[in-house]
């Protein structure tokens, strides 16, 4: 149980601090905690938790995949927006028969996200501009471009928000629940995650990506085309981000709403989750689930127990810090054992 105890400590520490904060501001923990849990999993809320889990997990892949090759992809927002607007454009402008009406926009979104990310590859491999800088710098213009397209050429007329018209019925993602928020996006992303985990540990490409990330010169010496592998990894990550953009747009409310893809902060939640998982791929989905649970549950807590939203942010911030600290304590203990 040596492995378990630190995570128990992490949760206990986070709970203790959170409780203190609640008491300090006059919130009854006995109301707040059940509300947190209910807000995330009970009363049909599980559907929304899953609806937030899917894009966050996708964005976690978008960050983790290039990270394995040693490239920091901080441009998730841009790739997400590019994928979303491209998928919306295809769904709106290209008349397609039923199944293709879903598949083609998703594929186009994936491609768009991949292209945006792949822009960083030659900058990194040829010009030595690190991906962590270039992806970040490319992201903002990509978001702006998507926003421009949604505001002008693709805009729905006569509405107050910058958004595209509702996508045609054919292009809606098949829903798995009545309200339609859990779509086939869930199995799709879960499948992708599984594939990634498999590829990472059991395929030649996964091995070469890891070797490139661990020691690029070693991989190069071993005959791996490191630049190409790094570019693939970046493009792959961007592709997943683009796909996530497509999934969001093809799900309810079935349109590209300007800012709606980036506002929930999937990208940075995902980065936090991957970093929390600290280089252990199988932990990534767990970390994503934890953070999603907190965020969605936090809204429930806000609704039911009147915990102000700022407090939810405070609590999340504290939990991330504590988990980070305990993760290293565990890692150091593990190294010593």
């Amino acid at each position, binding site marked *: 149980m040596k492995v378990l105890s630190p995570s128990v400590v992490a949760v206990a520490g986070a709970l203790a601090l959170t409780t203190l904060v609640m008491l300090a501001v006059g919130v009854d923990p006995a109301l707040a905690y059940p509300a947190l849990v209910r807000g995330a999993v009970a009363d049909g809320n599980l559907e929304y938790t899953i609806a937030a889990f899917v894009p966050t997990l996708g964005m976690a892949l978008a960050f983790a995949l290039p990270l394995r090759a040693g490239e920091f992809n901080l441009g998730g927002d841009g790739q997400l927006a590019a994928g979303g607007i491209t998928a919306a454009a295809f769904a709106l402008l290209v008349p397609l028969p039923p199944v293709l009406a879903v598949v083609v926009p998703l594929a186009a979104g994936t491609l768009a996200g991949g292209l945006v990310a792949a822009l960083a590859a030659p900058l990194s491999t040829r010009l030595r501009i690190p991906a962590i800088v270039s992806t970040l710098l490319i992201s903002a213009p990509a978001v702006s471009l998507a926003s421009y397209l949604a505001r002008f050429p693709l805009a729905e007329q006569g509405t107050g928000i910058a958004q595209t018209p509702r996508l045609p019925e054919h292009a809606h993602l098949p829903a798995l629940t009545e309200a339609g928020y859990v779509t086939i996006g869930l199995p799709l992303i879960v499948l992708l995650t599984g594939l990634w985990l498999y*590829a990472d540990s059991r395929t030649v490409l996964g091995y070469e990506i890891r070797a490139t990330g661990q020691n690029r010169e070693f991989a190069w*010496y071993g005959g791996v085309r490191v630049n190409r592998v790094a570019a693939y990894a970046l493009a792959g990550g961007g592709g997943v981000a683009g796909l996530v953009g497509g999934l969001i747009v093809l799900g309810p409310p079935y349109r590209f709403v300007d800012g709606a893809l980036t506002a929930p902060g999937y990208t940075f939640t995902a980065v936090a989750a991957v970093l929390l998982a600290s280089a252990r791929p199988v932990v990534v989905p767990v970390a994503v689930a934890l953070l999603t649970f907190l965020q969605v549950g936090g809204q429930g807590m806000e609704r039911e127990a009147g915990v102000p939203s700022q407090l939810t942010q405070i609590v999340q911030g504290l939990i991330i810090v504590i988990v980070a600290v305990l993760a290293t304590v565990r890692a150091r203990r593990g190294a010593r*054992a």
Partner: protein
Amino acid sequence: MSEFAAELVGVSKRFGPVLANDGIDLAVARGEVHAVVGENGAGKSTLMSILYGLHRPDAGHILRSGTQIRLRSPADAIRHGLGMVHQRFRLFPGLTVADNIVIGAEPVTGARLDRAAAHRSVTDLSDRYGLRVDPAALVGTLPVGVRQRVEILRALYRHAEVLILDEPTAVLTPGEADRLFEVLRTVAAGGVAILLVTHKLTEVLAAGDRVTVLRQGRVTGRFTTADTTADDLVHAMVGRSLPTPVPRRATPDAAPALDVRDLTVRDADGVTRLSSVSFSVRPGEIVGLAGVAGSGQRELIDTITGLRDGGDRVLLDGTPIHPGRDPRVAYVPEDRHARGTAPQMSLAENLLMGEQRTLATRSGLPRAAVRERARDLVARFSISAASVDVPISALSGGNAQKAVLARELSRGSRVIVAEEPTQGVDVAVRSRVHALLIEARDQGAAVLVQSSELAELRELADRVLVLFEGRLVAEFGGDATEAQLGQAMTGVSA
């Protein structure tokens, strides 16, 4: 007051399952050069690190001039007059030579660094000991030999009374090593106690006063060099004598396996690094490559292995090599940390590199097969490791080197290129490595060995080529003397 400058008394240190030091007593006197030898992983670096405050012993204590001291960090050790030259350089690549030397005890006027004074001290020291350096040069741009000088100057600058050197000659050319020993003698004559860790027994016998031998964390022998032979030391180190080298064979007449024709290489600045180099290596022969560092070895080997462009001038069995690493060439690189291994990846995964595609099946890269292959290599090349799943950084230097050799030699390549194949490995591993290279030769491989250790070339090579300023300036038979080689290496025409 004790006659000993420093004493380690009953020192033990455990790393997880490994008992790296087991009740070691060691004393070094003022004015003495005290050598510490032992196999890879015997515990030498650990012991020195304890004396320098980098590790804390689990048991035992340290005396300095007879008084017990407690070292919690290198800062404490420095305060007690200890200095250390580390096995892996501890230099700041982005700082100048002078800054690297004075850091920690900088001359200042007010808050300001007195750079002029620093340069003066460095110049004085380097003149006094004949260790030439440019105080203003950035360390990151210097060749390894010069970096070693910087490390030594740093310890001297700090007026260390006890100076620890962990394998200082592993990266030096013979001339540089000789120079270093002269310096050490001068320093010792000034009353400094010197601890010298090395694998080169000739050095021990030439430069040391006394020798302590470690084996598996314990002291297995104490000798005075005056009445000791290399064989005595080897026996204490590995518990047996080593086999004598295999006699050399005559050069075969077969067609060359590796043929370099009129190869010229320019670097990015347009500087010519290799000019019109031509030679060939036949199956069944070992060709040595000698030259002072920076004479073009790097460029030559990178081109031969396909890592550098220009490969149409290099033929393997008559066809040009494939760019981007030719799989037909086995390559044991010099720097096993930067190039030869990925330290955080497992031993099995390090052993896999280059074979990942051949081992793959349609469903991917089966873990079982990867491990199986690794276990097989570990057994065949007697690599000692807790398991094939530990990160390769957890292996001792010698075993990591064996792992790299195992990976490369097991490919059955026609051509083998080995750079500094025994750098930093103990005598037992060294003889094992040599045996492996000779075995490959005998099975018909064409072997090119680059080494800065001339003794190694003389032991192994059927022919020796000498590079000087990018040109092949001489070729000797395997019986060339070190003097002849040394002359050719420094441009004195043979």
